């Protein structure tokens, strides 16, 4: 009986410990996840204003600009429907390039510029971040009618 009690205590402590740890972990997870958005979604105010999120798309050709300190760069990320300015201070990854897919992580500034503190590029040059690929597709599907009307206007 006594040994059984002791074992019960051990089990109770273990279960309680694991439970507490797991619930802490899950609540911490919620505040640590970063959602992915395309420029179209951000401009439609779907992205959170105060939180870190990931913005992805293609780097627009000819949009890469370097500030005079040499380390701050700005570029435009587009999903072929809408575009957004991104600012980043630091060294860009090897695989970063104009016309290529990119995922950046950061926050929106009050000036409408996305301030990234991380720029992700994958190991493989032919790799297109899957979020970007599907983001481009949906953005294009949604923006198709608009795009066409725009083209008509420009003509």
């Amino acid at each position: 009986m006594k040994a059984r009690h002791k074992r019960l205590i051990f089990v109770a402590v273990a279960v309680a410990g694991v439970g507490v740890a797991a619930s802490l972990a899950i609540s911490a997870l919620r505040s640590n996840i970063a959602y992915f958005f395309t420029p179209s979604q951000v401009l439609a105010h779907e992205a959170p204003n105060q939180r870190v999120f990931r913005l992805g798309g293609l780097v627009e050709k000819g949009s890469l600009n370097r500030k005079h300190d040499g380390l701050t760069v700005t570029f435009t990320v587009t999903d072929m429907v809408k575009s957004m300015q991104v600012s980043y201070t630091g060294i860009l990854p090897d695989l970063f390039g104009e016309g290529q897919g990119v995922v950046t992580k950061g926050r929106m500034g009050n000036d409408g510029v996305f301030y990234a503190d991380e720029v992700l590029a994958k190991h493989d040059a032919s790799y297109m971040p899957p979020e970007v690929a599907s983001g481009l597709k949906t953005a294009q599907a949604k923006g198709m009618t608009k795009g066409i009307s725009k083209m008509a206007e420009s003509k």
Partner: protein
Amino acid sequence: MIPELGHFALILALTLAIVQATVPLAGSFTGNRSWMAISRPLAYGQFTFVVIAFICLLQAFLTSDFSVAYVAENSNTLLPTVYKVSALWGAHEGSLLLWATLLGAWGAAVATFSHNLPQQVVSRVLAVMGMIGIGFLLFMLLTSNPFGRIFPAPPQGRDLNPLLQDPGLAVHPPMLYMGYVGFSVAFAFAIAALMGGKLDAAWARWSRPWTTVAWCFLTIGIALGSWWSYYELGWGGWWFWDPVENASFMPWLVGTALIHSLAVTEKRAAFKSWTVLLALFAFSLSLLGTFLVRSGVLTSVHAFATDPARGTFILAFLCVVIGGSLALYAWRAPQVSTGGGFDLLSRESFLLANNLLLTLFAALVLLGTLAPLIYEAMDWGKISVGFPWFNTMFLGLMPFLALLMGVGQLSRWKHDDTQRLTRELRIAFILSCILAVVAALPMFSDDHWYVPLGIGLAGWLVFSHLTGLRDHLKNKKGPAAWLADLRGGGRSYYAMLLAHLGVAVFIIGITMVSNFGIEEDIRMSPGATKTVAGYRFQFDGVTSTTGPNYQAQQGRVLVFRGDKQIAVLKPQKRKYVASRQVMTEAAINAGLRRDLYVSLGEAVGDHGDWAVRIYYKPYVRWIWLGGLLMALGGVLALTDRRYRTRAAGKPAKLPPALAAARS
């Protein structure tokens, strides 16, 4: 012709694996000795044929036979020979072949070094390994044939991913896979024991050395991978909580729990069901890791859709292995007698608590790794889990783990009392508290409060283990007695000391590098200097140079300490000819107490200015040194006499695990 030979060899290996998985197993239940006896020759046969296939693919790489699609995609005539060899396991199909080859090797090793085991056990173990072999060979033949041809053959190959053209990464996958696949032996022993319904101390003793060998390989594999990413990815991180890394870390955590739990099962016949469960999970996680990484599913659920055949096969295989083994467990485990009882305060309890912490951590890592998949599948949005979360989990659990380690190694089996433990550990506790307080002084800690925590815990580990050592040596007076102890059964004790010391070294390493590391990204003109952590870095500009299959921009950075020049660092920015891929090659001045790390960003402006990364990484080597010490501890444990002489009455063969480690 030769690639077809390799393909044919794979088919033959599959045929042998099918026989190996069925006939000896049937024999073990019907008692047919000749059916059981064929398991060994079949294991050798399977090994021979996968090795033939392996050599055939190797030959295709060495001769740059670009009519083989896999070679054309991953090699190039300009590629140095060493990397032509390592390119074999540079991508999906080849790494599966490496897996199958190593599985064959482990099977052959079990067949060779199991002569002191009952025939029934051997045939069941080899049958289970045969089943795993079937899974892998079928997967390869049905969906990922490395010998597939393309017509017409391209004149030149696409080249190996430049990131993988590195000596560290050439050996990293084989080491890691030796670990992954090695857990299949522990798994097979567990399944065999469940089939026989006989889980006893003997079973634990048989599977212990095999598990330890696998764990050693995995430890070294992970340490190598971490070291590689540190110097090769060009930004000085040593662990990113990347899914690929997590995939190797989860089996390691469960494997670590397993080797401790096996110790309890062997010595006290307790925790039997738990140990079996860990053995099942260690291998299941290895499988999950291999597949998750290789299928690309972790980057997106949609990667599955790009090759549905592979995805479906993987899912089915995982379901069969995990579901099947758990079902067998659920059916058999309730019949397993509970072993030796123990008190709340005993070594068993401490080991169990640490086991729980390790598995809990593994479960959390699994959660964090799979969370993006779960969110996407549930249509909750596309997310990524930031590495701060993983760090928080690690920091939340590690202190408890270290505290328990210190007490556990000193406590007695079955029953201990509070007074004795407090008396023994009082001094160690006070000393480590003093160390923590000293480390907390502003002049040392620089107001990072993790510093006293890390240093205090490392101190606690060292002091408590020294107390344990004094306890261990109490009755062994004089060097002669000590030597006899080291030569005899005490070796596993010293192995434990060494491995746990590795943990202390590891903790010091991560504490120092995370709190005192300095990272500077700056723009430098030729001739400019920058002082980081008391070292003066002088940038001498960039010149062009060429390598065997790349062109490079090579920087020259002189490092001064005071007036003395201590190093010339030559970081490179390479552009590979075939793939047009750009790669940063960092230059490192390594030392036991600090690394100086310089890498090139990109050219800025027209006057030869470059964006340069200058990192100061104190004690970063201690992280890998810690891993190495843990693995060395494992190797020392394997040489313990227990594994050589317990072959009840039979003449001792080579120490099985040691010999396996050599092979």
